[in-house]
């Protein structure tokens, strides 16, 4: 029973949550990077 459940999980699993997490991570990185970039520009 446990094995069956595991096998079906194994076949069906698509890491949609990890993809979403990765996209959020990239957005966060972009925001922080541009914050510093605009700080650089503001210093002339």
């Amino acid at each position, binding site marked *: 029973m446990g094995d069956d459940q595991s096998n079906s*999980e194994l076949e069906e*699993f698509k890491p949609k*949550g990890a993809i979403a*997490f990765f996209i959020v991570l990239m957005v966060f*990185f972009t925001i922080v*990077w541009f914050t*510093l970039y605009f*700080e650089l520009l503001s210093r002339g």
Partner: protein
Amino acid sequence: MSDYTFRFSKSEKRLVAVLIIIPMVLLFIGVYGGLMQTLFRAGIIQSDPFVGGDYYKGLTFHGVLNAIVFTTFFAVAFGNAIIPYSLKKNLNATIAWIAGILMLVGSVVAAIVILIGEATVLYTFYPPLKAHPLFYIGLTLLVVGSWVASANWVPMYLQWRKENEGKKTPLAVVGMFTTFIVWFIATLAVAVEILFMLLPWSLGWIDEINVMLARTLFWFFGHPLVYFWLLPAYVMYYVFMPKLAGGKLYSDMAGRLVFMMFIVFSVPVGTHHQYMDPAISSQWKLLHGIFTFAVALPSLITAFTIAASLEYAGKLKGSKGLFGWMGKLPYFKKENWFFAYLITGLIIFIFGGIGGIINASYQMNTVVHNTAWVPGHFHLTVAGPVMLAFLGGSLYLVAQFLNKEVRLKAWAMLSPYVYTIGLLIMSYGLKIGGLMGMPRRTNTGASYANPDSVLYQADWIPYIDLTVIGGSIMFVGIVMYIISFFTTVFSKSKGAEEDAIVTFPISEPLHDEPATWLRNFKPYIIIAIILIVLSYTPVIYDVLQATYGGSLPFSPDSPVPLR
């Protein structure tokens, strides 16, 4: 005996325990030095109340003991444990002990010289600051010992390959060999710096030293050193963490690809630490900057792969929705205390990672260069994921190899969370202070944070206060850990030492790709050597062509040369 246990010899077990316990004492001295740093910089103390000496001596032993000594010992001890375990072969214990003794003698000598105030040169030991020759000799012994220890794994591995033709090398072994391939290449440069420049200069055999060349050789070593720290943590993320979370590693191939990418890109990046240095042409600095972006890729692959592995674990526990898996992970299960060290490290690394990308972004480096932003950043890497994975790994190893049950598990489990809260507060204070212009390395307590000084900066004070609060919370977290660690070490064994078998939480792969193109280190080492030659030849040429003269030795407390 199952695939997941292995019987080490008594000698091997004792060696691993010694390589963990003695550096733990040195680590605690270094952590104490870290707490004192925050108090010095806030102007709360002017001299160390216990060890004596000034800010720079404390900064030196904090950096050397925590960032160089503790990390090197853990990497060797972890390799001595996980490689024999994974290959099911015993170490050559004699060679392993010789290596361990070299490292111990070297570290203790270097630590004593620092503590008596004869090597106040910070962990970068940049000339023209000069240390006592024994400091350089001590560091050399530490490095040579680590070379001997890693060379001891090679015959075991070759024998295993002969006996297991066509089989994939266990991922943990790939990771640990990657760690030491990067270490060996990187330490060649610092060996040249120490043996041919710093040591003869310190002994008085030569009068002057080429500061720019020494700095360049240091950063040839100094940035790959970051990956030497990170890689054993990555081994734990890939090999242990999915299992600890109750799942599987999403992709075995991703782990192997990541390790090979680190071999290729770890070294030709050092000049991004020298963006503001003279003597090196800007195009070569830019090239190193581009390679630094390349070396961020394996970390991004890791972020996705580990997230997918944790999501799989969450799904097995019935999570719903895109982010439901995050709520199903064993954050606060004291029997699964090791997971807490790995997950907190990964959370911290989100902030450490973007900081590193900003530092490497050439012109943006001008915003943060030599400011408190930089220690704010590297505490989110070496004092974050690296430190926490190594602390968790040390407790796990010492319990396994001494056949003890981990004591005060609730403390052990909570310690990384307390530490993480402190670290995030402290790094925030350092980073924002840095953006306002607060310098790194400098004792702000004697100047910018001193209301009696003409340099006093009132607007920096709230951020300096945050570093004191954060640093103090970090110290509490470490004390909780140390109590759990030594209570475990001195507790009663579970049974006779010789009966003990060692086990590690090895994760099964969900996708076990053949990845035949990732099974041999050789092509990746060759590519790495080509990139190093291409990226460093013009840099070294520029440095040697520069017309700067050599420098006499100095100490931090006087503008007059020592001779």
